[in-house]
């Protein structure tokens, strides 16, 4: 634990990791309830293409991936709305195209460079100060927007038609959630990598949903699981000399399993 107080890079990792994980945790609750658990997975593949594009253009991959993902996610939304596609088909198509683009761009820019691997597996300990501040600011904005709109978001998720009649602007909120999700996925990629980022969205929220009797409780428990995962994951990884991304996700899974068993026992 004392290592956290000694090393600057650990503190930066912790700070960025906490904010990003909180953004994932609050969004995750809505996405799971909207039966949209796979959107995180799909968008992470898009983010991969964005990172590869950034490396190819030799621009900041994080920023290129952000812009790229936001537009792609709105594209997915349009594809889904224009019907004729079943369930997850739109996500499946767009994410495969993202992966394909990423592979081609990565090859064109020479080879699969070390930094691309960092994005795949996550390297929060290598996060640069400027990225820390960008991440913290964006993640805080996501949390504020979600928490600030939680009631209409909840209404829309629970009963779309009744929400419309009550004057909730459902399409605008759909778009907002989509954009926030893509931003969050790109940030989360910094923490645990493209391959694991959807876990940050799904696992804490799933743990929170096991135990919550109210929506507020679901959000709070999800946040708690996210914070515990990041702190314990970082500390354990540092002391055991294991990958941070893997440890964060594993701690999250242990919390999920514990809340699952707790609920079983209670009922």
């Amino acid at each position: 634990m004392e290592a956290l107080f000694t090393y600057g890079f650990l503190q930066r990792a912790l700070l960025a990791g906490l904010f990003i994980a909180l953004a994932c945790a609050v969004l995750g609750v809505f996405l799971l309830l909207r039966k949209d658990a796979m959107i995180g997975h799909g968008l992470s593949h898009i983010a991969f293409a964005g990172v590869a594009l950034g490396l190819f253009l030799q621009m900041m991959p994080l920023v290129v991936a952000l812009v790229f993902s936001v537009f792609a996610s709105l594209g997915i939304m349009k594809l889904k709305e224009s019907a004729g596609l079943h369930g997850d088909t739109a996500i499946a198509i767009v994410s495969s195209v993202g992966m394909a683009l990423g592979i081609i761009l990565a090859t064109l820019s020479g080879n699969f460079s070390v930094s691309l691997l960092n994005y795949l597996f996550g390297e929060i300990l290598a996060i640069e100060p400027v990225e820390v501040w960008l991440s913290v600011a964006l993640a805080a904005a996501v949390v504020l927007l979600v928490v600030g709109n939680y009631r209409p978001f909840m209404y829309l998720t629970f009963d779309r038609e009744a929400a419309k009649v009550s004057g909730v602007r459902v399409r605008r909120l759909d778009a907002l959630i989509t954009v926030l999700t893509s931003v969050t996925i790109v940030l989360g990629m910094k923490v645990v990598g493209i391959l694991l980022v959807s876990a940050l969205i799904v696992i804490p929220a799933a743990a929170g949903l096991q135990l919550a009797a109210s929506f507020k409780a679901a959000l709070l428990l999800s946040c708690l699981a996210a914070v515990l995962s990041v702190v314990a994951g970082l500390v354990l990884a540092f002391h055991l000399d294991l990958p941070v991304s893997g440890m964060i996700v594993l701690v999250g899974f242990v919390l999920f399993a514990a809340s699952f068993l707790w609920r079983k026992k209670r009922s």
Partner: protein
Amino acid sequence: MDWPAAEDKALISVENVSFSFGSLPVLRDVTFRIHAGDFLAIIGPNGSGKTTLLKIILGLLRPERGRVLIGGQRLDDFAGRPSIGYVPQKATHFDPLFPASAREVVAMALRTPRPGSREGRHKEETAVRHALQVVGMDEFKNRRIGRLSGGQQQRIFIARAIVNRPRILFLDEPTTGVDAEMQGHFYELLERLVKEEGITIVLITHDIGIVDRRITRVACLNERLVYHGSHAEFCRSDTLKDMLAGGHHLISHQH
């Protein structure tokens, strides 16, 4: 917003409304008015266009022909949706694990101008408590919605629909999930809303058997409006005999 003050002016008037889904005609030239203080039942067999008519009134669907006036205004330039309460047909078909307490479900519909302010929060508290008390569910407010019985859930959805103190409340097939025993209590509750809260009620059902003596007006719909008048007249009318004679399958229970 301004609702018509005069008693004789209709809260809602449906004028020559026609609608079809593709080539399937659903409503033909439907015209009627809803007045303040009515306890109106719209009855008709399954597939007769009741839900479609309601969605047109609520602004969820656009009529092909005709128009709907609410408080004398076209719905397009009508900013007063909080003045309409709505309990959807499938309200109780939600994800039973959804993590919302009864209280949160009621609060969902709140439209407070400045919800963040202290005054706003206080107003919200009061509105939610009042709505829960009216439907007699105050003691269950912290229970997760999925853990309430069908009849209790129905009450919570009514509380949600009246939390902004609407002038008019629409209920689409509200007794589907409520057992026969509870239906008496359910009508008592609706009557109380009319008399004590001053809410006009429009209840939509395919089940003529549940049309209660407390209902004051009846409209029968089957693509066209077959009958519209007082409940007493309705019971004496040929429409009822025709319906009971079986042609309309009014009492069928295909949920």
